[in-house]
């Protein structure tokens, strides 16, 4: 267990893209990926976080449900909600999958535009 620090959620705004609960899902993932929320660390209760972020209880419940479904957090009746031991792994795995998919798409786009494999590798090197 780690001591609970303040969660560094960015501004949660109806003007930002995507539903509010997705913004909260991303914010929690960001905190875990950055190592500011460690395995076993408690998350604020649904009602406390709703009051802190000024969003409805349902918004927070839904975000927590989604994180729990993805194995990033877990809840224990009466105890609260915690970061799963494998939470950071799940986020890293999802990030890797996303990166691979983006690269595959880049290769398809490049070939469609007539680039050779060498051109593609050079482009990737430039990005790196």
């Amino acid at each position: 267990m780690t001591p609970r620090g303040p969660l560094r959620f960015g501004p949660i705004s109806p003007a930002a893209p995507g539903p509010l609960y997705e913004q909260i899902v991303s914010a929690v993932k960001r905190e875990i990926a950055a190592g500011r929320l460690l395995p076993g660390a408690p998350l604020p209760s649904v009602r406390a976080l709703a009051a802190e972020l000024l969003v409805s209880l349902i918004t927070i419940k839904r975000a927590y449900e989604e994180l729990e479904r993805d194995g990033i957090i877990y809840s224990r009746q009466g105890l609260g909600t915690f970061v799963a031991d494998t939470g950071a792994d799940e986020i890293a795995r999802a990030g890797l999958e996303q990166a691979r998919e983006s690269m595959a798409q880049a290769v398809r786009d490049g070939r469609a535009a007539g680039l050779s494999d060498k051109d593609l590798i050079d482009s990737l090197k430039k990005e790196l």
Partner: protein
Amino acid sequence: MADALALKGVTRRLGKFVLGPLDLEVPRGGVTALIGRNGAGKTTTLDLLMGMGRADAGAIEVLGLAMPRDEVAIRQRVAYVNPDISFQAWGKVGRALDFVSGFYPDWSQPRCDALLSAFGIARGERIAALSFGARIKLSLVMALARDAELLLLDEPAVGLDVEARRKLFSEILDFVRRDDRAVVISSHQLSDLERVADHVAIIDAGRLVLFSRMDRLVERFTLLDARLATVGAMPSLDGVKLLTREGERLRLLFDRDCARLDQLAPAGIEILSETSMTLEEIFVALVGGEN
């Protein structure tokens, strides 16, 4: 535990206006937005819940208690914030608070003092000299200084600046940190309500148009930009409401609960784009006109 509110077949006639028959169940443990155009029946409904006016027919239960039979018990457990309530007769803020506090065994003076300072009101201020916004703040202090189970708020954001509105919604969400409590709030600030309310009840011309979880509502309705492939009138389809038409171009309100997108092409409607909608856009599309 009984629901926060349960209305069955409630009607109330006020001159030409008829409320109901209204059936509505509001659960505890969250915030419910009550929205409708001016004159739709929002205030009439809230007044009935507090015994300010009697229903002509139907049954009203508040926190499991029957109105009007248990009116005194209901008033003890429900706090009502309403811009029409005036405390001018008491002269100064402090005297009005002392008077009101005497009625409620659950009144917390430290809580009252904290709220006064949070909302920037002094006990020595003359009530007659308070702005409209400040009078609403005083009404909020009176409601929140008690340990009520149900908070009814009729247009509490009118006349409040951005900071005071923030404070208001923060107090509301703090109030429902206990899951046996509930808040019902009517407001024209639909973007605020979309953000903080768990459920939404839309009323129009005295009738309930729909009651839904807020997140389900914004997922249920979308806006379609479409083109009518055939000449003449738009075919009538369940779950598809024509909002505007210019020549062959159509703007449609699409209800995913009642229709599927693939039903449109066979009816001669070509979809150009589909966009999600805010609560305000859905409200205007459903009941029309200005809120």
